[in-house]
């Protein structure tokens, strides 16, 4: 158990340290990165197997018992998130190596691989943290790595975008720290399970204030409306591999933090009404933003914001089915979002940009790429038989099961958002993929076919294909996935298992 829980954090960090020493040997760096990520994938899959039955496993860093030392915890939710994230991280890493082979990362200093590994460790630590301050540290690792990554190959646009990104993230970090101070002030502990227990004796109104404060803190990072503005201004500007991983993972980590804090810490108070209102606003504002964008990456970023709203909707239902739906949605969305951004990277190879206003006929230029786009686009739009449909069916089912006028409003917003998502993603298809191909795209294709970049490009395309396949597997494995999701949802609603695993039998009272 100790090893299983330590590997996702320590192995990438060791890899990063080794990789920093190998700046002169990019091949070696790539090898180290792939090895480390593979180890993480294997480890997290094992972790998922252990926790799939709903058991919660813990490890006490430094061997000090729970409220004193830092606890590392894996429950079904965190190990599922870990496993999916690890797989996506690995595939994006391989895509990046493809880009390296194709010579497309010429101008980047050789720090991508170490920082990417640090990002991996940060993401894993966030999912594993059983301690609020440790969660803060995990967030900081992840965010600092993301600051470093978003400024890779700094054009002026990127520098501008990362300024917005960095300052907003720093603000949320400061607020997070403030929140920790408040929680410590009230409870005298930072261990999540311990906080959960001690908050029980605190005045309800103060708990509510904390719940809302933490919703805001994590909501900034999860890009909840009205705190979403920074995301569409920053993600699309980063280079492909980085925007892919950001879009796939970073907001999801924040969503995970929202789920964890709102269920485990503040679960006994009901802020569903706030959550549902936020969800409605997020779904609609996000997708409205997507509809008027001309840049594919920006469109996808707005769609990302919008679909975070779906997850908050599920959380706001405050039921096992709702949480299970969120879990399914998270897994689906991580894979699909990464996939779409990778495809956008491929599109750039043909079009040289990602603007829909000067893009036509990609369908003819590269049928394979169109396929790679179409599948995740359908999935994002929630069309069957892909993972997006499963997630949406789960969510709507949970919503109908709960009922109430606010939930019905949210359902209506969800249906409207789904339709608008269809319109948004198929707008990309109709404008960018259909039509007579632009002459320079055809030229580009011919040049790519002859060029020395072919091997790397093929590798990139293959990795995109792998991601598509993973998306299909998620859809096909909807059975086991939803089963784990329900177990996770049950654990989250209950909380006893988590608290007792950390603090010992009977701690949850």
């Amino acid at each position, binding site marked *: 158990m100790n090893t299983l829980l330590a590997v996702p954090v320590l192995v990438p960090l060791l890899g990063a340290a080794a990789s920093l020493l190998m700046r002169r040997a990019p091949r070696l760096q790539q090898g180290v990165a792939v090895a480390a990520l593979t180890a993480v994938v294997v480890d997290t899959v094992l972790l998922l197997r252990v926790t799939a039955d709903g058991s919660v496993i813990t490890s006490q860093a430094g061997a000090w018992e729970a409220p004193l030392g830092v606890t590392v915890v894996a429950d079904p939710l965190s190990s599922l998130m870990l496993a999916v994230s690890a797989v996506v991280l690995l595939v994006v890493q391989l895509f990046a190596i493809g880009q390296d082979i194709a010579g497309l990362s010429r101008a980047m200093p050789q720090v991508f691989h170490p920082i990417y590994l640090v990002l991996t460790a940060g993401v894993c630590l966030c999912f594993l943290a059983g301690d609020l301050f440790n969660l803060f540290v995990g967030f900081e690792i992840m965010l600092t790595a993301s*600051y470093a990554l978003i400024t890779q190959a700094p054009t002026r646009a990127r520098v501008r975008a990362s300024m917005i990104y960095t300052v907003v993230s*720093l603000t949320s970090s400061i607020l997070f*720290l*403030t929140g920790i101070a408040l929680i*410590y002030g009230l409870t005298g502990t*930072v261990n999540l399970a311990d906080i959960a227990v001690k908050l029980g004796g605190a005045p309800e109104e103060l708990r509510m204030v904390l719940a809302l404060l933490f919703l805001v803190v994590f909501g900034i990072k999860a890009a909840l409306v009205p705190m979403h503005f920074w995301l569409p201004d920053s993600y699309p500007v980063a280079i492909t591999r980085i925007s892919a991983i950001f879009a796939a993972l970073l907001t999801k980590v924040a969503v995970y933090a929202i789920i964890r804090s709102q269920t485990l810490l503040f679960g006994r108070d009901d802020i569903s009404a706030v959550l549902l209102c936020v969800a409605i606003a997020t779904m609609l504002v996000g997708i409205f933003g997507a509809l*008027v964008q001309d840049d594919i990456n920006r469109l996808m970023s707005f769609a990302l914001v919008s679909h975070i709203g779906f997850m908050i909707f599920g959380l706001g239902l405050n039921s096992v089915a709702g949480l299970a739906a969120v879990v399914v949605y998270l897994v689906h969305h991580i894979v699909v979002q990464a996939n779409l951004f990778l495809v956008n990277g491929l599109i750039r190879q043909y079009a040289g940009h990602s603007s829909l206003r000067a893009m036509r006929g990609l369908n003819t230029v590269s049928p394979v790429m169109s396929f790679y786009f179409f599948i995740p686009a359908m999935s994002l739009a929630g069309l069957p038989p892909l993972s997006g449909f499963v997630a949406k069916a789960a969510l709507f089912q949970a919503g109908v099961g709960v009922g109430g006028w606010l939930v019905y409003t949210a359902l209506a917003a969800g249906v409207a958002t789904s339709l608008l998502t269809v319109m948004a993603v198929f707008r990309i298809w109709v404008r960018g993929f259909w039509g007579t191909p632009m002459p320079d795209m055809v030229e580009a294709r011919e040049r790519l076919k002859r060029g020395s970049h072919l091997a790397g490009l093929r590798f990139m395309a293959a990795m995109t294909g792998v991601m598509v396949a993973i998306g299909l597997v998620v859809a096909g494995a909807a059975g086991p996935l939803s089963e784990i999701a329900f177990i996770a949802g049950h654990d989250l609603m209950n909380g006893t298992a988590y608290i007792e695993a950390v603090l010992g039998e009977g701690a949850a009272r």
Partner: protein
Amino acid sequence: MNAPGLVLIFAVAVLYSTGFYLLLQRSLMRVVFGIVILGHAANLSLMLTDHAITLPPLLTGKDGPISDPLPQAMALTAIVITFGVTTFLLALAYRVWLGDDNDEVPADLEDRRIGRLSEPEDSS
């Protein structure tokens, strides 16, 4: 008996307020200043979760209540993290200035472009 004195609470309020105000400025350097001040504010908040005037958490055998070491450790961690990140922000600000020759936070161009549209570009 835990709550800190009102003077300190007032100091925290002022620190947060000034930090936020600097953060909301367009000048990049003032934004950096804002982050630095907010860092102080957050660390001070952590410290204030504890009794006031007390002995350091050193187990030297002296009598008297010692201060709570955990917020101190967390604040220390936070100070160093803030330092690291602030230096990055500074480098970034420098680079923005290098690119735009302007010590101001630039607005997003695509947002402004869309902001100028009066009609939807396509509705088909």
